[in-house]
């Protein structure tokens, strides 16, 4: 029998970006807020000493701050005809563990999706006709527009201190910024990072080709900054230990630098770490959440009562918690009915390596979101008519790191080990750079999440099963993008280039990206979405679900900027809900 704990106004599952933001905004209204976090407490001062934080073996190889498969894993298959097997070592994506979540270990690339991305289905059909839509797709418009989200993108950027150069302020195109971006209210809070040699070559080559390069918006910030919560950040030192690491310099936007210092001062806030939420509990009629059940560090099962339950775990685990709690009808691809697990999507990566005979790129002087990007081939910024695919990619020249253990690119044909390999590593380290395309992934009938029929976790709960593969539309798009990257690499003066096409079938083994989206998507129709436009559950109105699980499909960008914007958008709705509880959109 679970130990029953006194009711709180708000129960939050997961203390990463979304959990910490909503916790702070609600606690400072005076509400009693408790956050339950599966992993340990982590803060900059206690956990990330400048002398030990850049430890590649500990963090990048041994995954110190990541989820252990024994805590939770997934089963995986490429299509419904296969039998899924458990992931025993995280590979293609790395879920975080502990306070800060993915916001602790990310690179900091902080994008706004483009206005067309939010109505991609309508837009593509209007411009190209229904014939352009890929086979088996379940692409759907977002239930919110870019203009509605703009103030919330702005809020997140201000809290995170993002460095960048605006391309469009209130409709006026700004030199040096991204001319394709949606109109912004104002400039970024801090100016762009300094770029390296590769980025200067890229900028010149792309400009000469008639493209529109601009500095990538960055959560490794360029200047001292104090955010609206009073939290202070320091300029990035370009140490190149961002992705998979905590930042000891207070330079990476994260819950640790941007929110937690203010949050922990709120007297009505409590964080309980090493507490794994196993279920959101529902009233007898299933129409209201009564709180959550969790298992604490000692293994004791507790029931935390609460008026409002905010599900703020990583996208995949949000979906699993809904499935385990019976919130929303599980998706069944055979019938096309049900919603939870529907429209799981991911991200494509393709591009071209550029080898130079005489160059010094100094890849170690880097930052996770350093780089120059261009959006000429993203979303519908170019004519899709001749190409026959939907979607696009942001194309970037970047060095995120030149770390000693794992960064050793070599030219094609180099042996995988031995003295020839060593010589190639030494000869190549300073003379290679990469032009990459990070592309959208649309949603499809057969890419989805459900509970595995066979495999269970240590608490006896079914693992979640991921059924996913890159579809022909994504392959066509990503491989076309790789050729665009190669064109630019050649124009930069590369003596030779190597194309990186999209790897198919999708493999869970090599690291690709932790941009897992969808499965609990927001929408206008309860038959095709789990959440209404305010991230409120259609079925259980005192449950809100934050994060990239709400994306109806993924765009050609990193998700965090949009996750942040949706969080503030939803918060505004939660403030209304608190005054008048109930469904914010009639079913």
């Amino acid at each position, binding site marked *: 029998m679970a130990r029953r704990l006194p009711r709180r106004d708000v129960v939050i599952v997961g203390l990463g970006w979304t959990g910490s933001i909503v916790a702070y905004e609600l606690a400072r209204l005076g509400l009693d807020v408790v956050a339950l976090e599966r992993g340990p407490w982590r803060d*900059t*001062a*206690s956990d990330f*000493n*400048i*002398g030990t934080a850049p430890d590649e073996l500990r963090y990048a190889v041994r995954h110190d701050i990541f989820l252990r498969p024994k805590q939770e894993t997934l089963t995986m298959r490429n299509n419904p005809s296969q039998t899924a097997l458990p992931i025993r070592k995280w590979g293609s994506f790395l879920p975080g563990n502990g306070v800060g979540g993915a916001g602790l270990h990310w690179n900091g690339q902080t994008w706004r999706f483009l206005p067309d991305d939010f109505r991609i289905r309508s837009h593509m059909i209007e411009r190209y006709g229904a014939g352009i839509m890929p086979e088996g797709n379940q692409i759907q418009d977002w239930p919110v527009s870019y203009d509605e989200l703009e103030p919330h993108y702005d809020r997140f950027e201000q809290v995170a201190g993002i460095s960048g150069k605006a391309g469009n302020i209130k409709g006026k195109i700004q030199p040096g910024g991204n001319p394709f971006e949606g109109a912004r209210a104002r400039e970024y809070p801090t100016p762009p990072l300094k770029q390296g040699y590769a980025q200067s070559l890229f900028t010149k080559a792309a400009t000469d080709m008639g493209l529109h390069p601009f500095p990538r918006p960055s959560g490794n910030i360029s200047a*001292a900054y*104090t955010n609206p*919560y*009073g*939290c*202070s*950040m*320091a*300029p990035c*030192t370009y*140490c190149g230990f961002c992705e998979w690491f905590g930042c*000891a*310099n*207070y330079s990476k936007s994260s819950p640790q*630098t941007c929110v937690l*210092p*203010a949050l*922990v*001062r709120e007297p009505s806030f409590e964080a309980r770490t090493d507490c794994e939420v196993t279920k959101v509990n529902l009233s007898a009629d299933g129409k209201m959440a009564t709180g959550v059940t969790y298992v604490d560090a000692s293994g004791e099962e507790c029931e935390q009562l609460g008026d409002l339950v905010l599900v703020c775990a990583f996208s995949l685990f949000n979906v699993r918690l809904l499935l385990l709690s019976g919130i929303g009808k599980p998706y069944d691809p055979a019938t096309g009915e049900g919603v939870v697990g529907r429209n799981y999507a991911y991200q494509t990566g393709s591009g071209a390596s550029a080898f130079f005979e005489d160059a010094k790129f100094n890849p170690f002087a880097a930052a996770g979101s350093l780089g120059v990007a261009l959006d000429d081939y993203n979303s519908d910024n170019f004519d899709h008519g001749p190409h026959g695919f939907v979607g696009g990619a942001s194309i970037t020249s970047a060095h995120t790191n030149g770390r000693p253990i794992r960064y050793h690119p070599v030219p094609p044909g180099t042996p995988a080990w031995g003295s020839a390999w060593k010589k190639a590593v030494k000869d190549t380290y300073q003379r290679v750079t990469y032009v990459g395309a990070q592309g959208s992934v649309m949603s499809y009938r057969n890419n989805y999440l459900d509970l595995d029929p066979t495999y269970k976790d240590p608490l006896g709960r079914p693992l979640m099963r991921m059924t996913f593969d890159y579809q022909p539309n994504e392959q066509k798009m990503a491989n076309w993008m790789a050729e665009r990257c190669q064109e630019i690499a050649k124009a930069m003066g590369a003596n030779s280039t190597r194309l990186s096409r999209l790897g198919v079938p999708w493999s869970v083994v090599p690291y690709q990206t932790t941009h897992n989206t969808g499965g609990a998507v927001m929408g206008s129709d309860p038959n095709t979405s789990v959440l209404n436009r305010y991230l409120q559950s259609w079925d259980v109105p005192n449950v809100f679900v934050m994060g990239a699980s709400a994306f109806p499909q993924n765009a050609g960008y990193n998700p965090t900027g949009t996750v942040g914007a949706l969080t503030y958008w939803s918060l505004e709705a939660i403030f209304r809900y608190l005054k008048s509880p109930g469904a914010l959109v009639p079913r």
Partner: protein
Amino acid sequence: MSGMALRLRHLILLLPLFGAGGAAAGPDNYVDIARGKALTIAGDCVACHTAPRGQPFAGGLALQTPFGEIMAPNITADNTTGIGSWSADDFARAMQEGRRPDGSHLYPAFPYPYYTKVERGDLDAIYAYLRTLQPVENRVDRDTLPFPFNVRLLMKGWNALFFTSGAFKPDPARSAEFNRGAYLAEGLGHCGACHTPFNAFGASRNDKYLEGNQIDNWTAPNITDDPRVGLGKWSVEDIVQYLKTGQNGFSLASGPMKDVVENSTSKMPTSDLKAIAVYLKQRGAASAPTSTPLAAANPRMQAGEAIYVDTCAACHVRNGEGVAHLFPKLAGSAVAIQQDPATLIRIIIAGGRAAATDGFPTSPAMPSLGYRLTDSQVAAVVTYVRNSWGNAAAPVTEETVKARRARITGAAAGD
């Protein structure tokens, strides 16, 4: 719960305490209690009278003195282990004369030589406030000093030599604001208890008032108006900002001052902080003689510079300018060039954190680097910081660092 119900709940909680407290605290002296709370905050009583992770005011913190450890007592209104049985007169006598109700002597680790200046009305308000706190049963060993210091009667002689009892006397030649600042700083605030050097008997040296001292291996810097090592470059507003938010353009509060800011000054009214600032700015300047900087070509400076560039410059910046609100500026820093380099050595070896306040909640950390810097490396980098970018102060030797490290880490010297 409605606001009314909340207020009722508080009233119900308070009533039995007023009942138990007797004459001093009745339900009609809310104003006194609120004032007493503000004064208790100004005196930062909680800092010494609370053990790590203990109940506030329930005592049990070991105060390190040159004569041994003294355990701060429980000052909640518990009848057997706290001061529940004390009258307002008993309380005033302890504060003004350093004597217990039975007449025995308190040690001046309890800074009654400062508290003696506090007016009786203020003492009664503090007393009234303390009696509203939840009584906590927590017995504290009050006799931890070794012989001969455990003989409390010795304090009679000490008092005869070093203690002048008597309330604060305003200086009619000064402004009311200055006098308010003096009353707070010299009395309840007991600034001098840390910032004034001790003599061999552990008494504050009045001839060196506020010229700096060493507390728990930290330097409590000179806070006279001296432009080099004191507050001379700070404006009144700079001092107020520092006390209110824990930082200003010159410095970030860390070490014991972090606790003072967090528990006390950040919660004080700005008018009182301004009064203290006016007092500190106007009462004068005093310091030890100026040093001449070591030449950059000095081998110790060169060794120190190499370490600084490798280990320190990422945050404190190559030119010692630091980063606003996070990483203290070292160029021109008064803390860096105090005669006593204890803070620099300590913070490099053991690390530290800056104060967290509502204004600046981040509380940035200086990581401990003692695990990877030898004594001679610490000495070199401290010497470099003390003699670069316009700074000038005596060099620091390996032996000084070695002795200091032993005290900081608790390891025996020579290990």
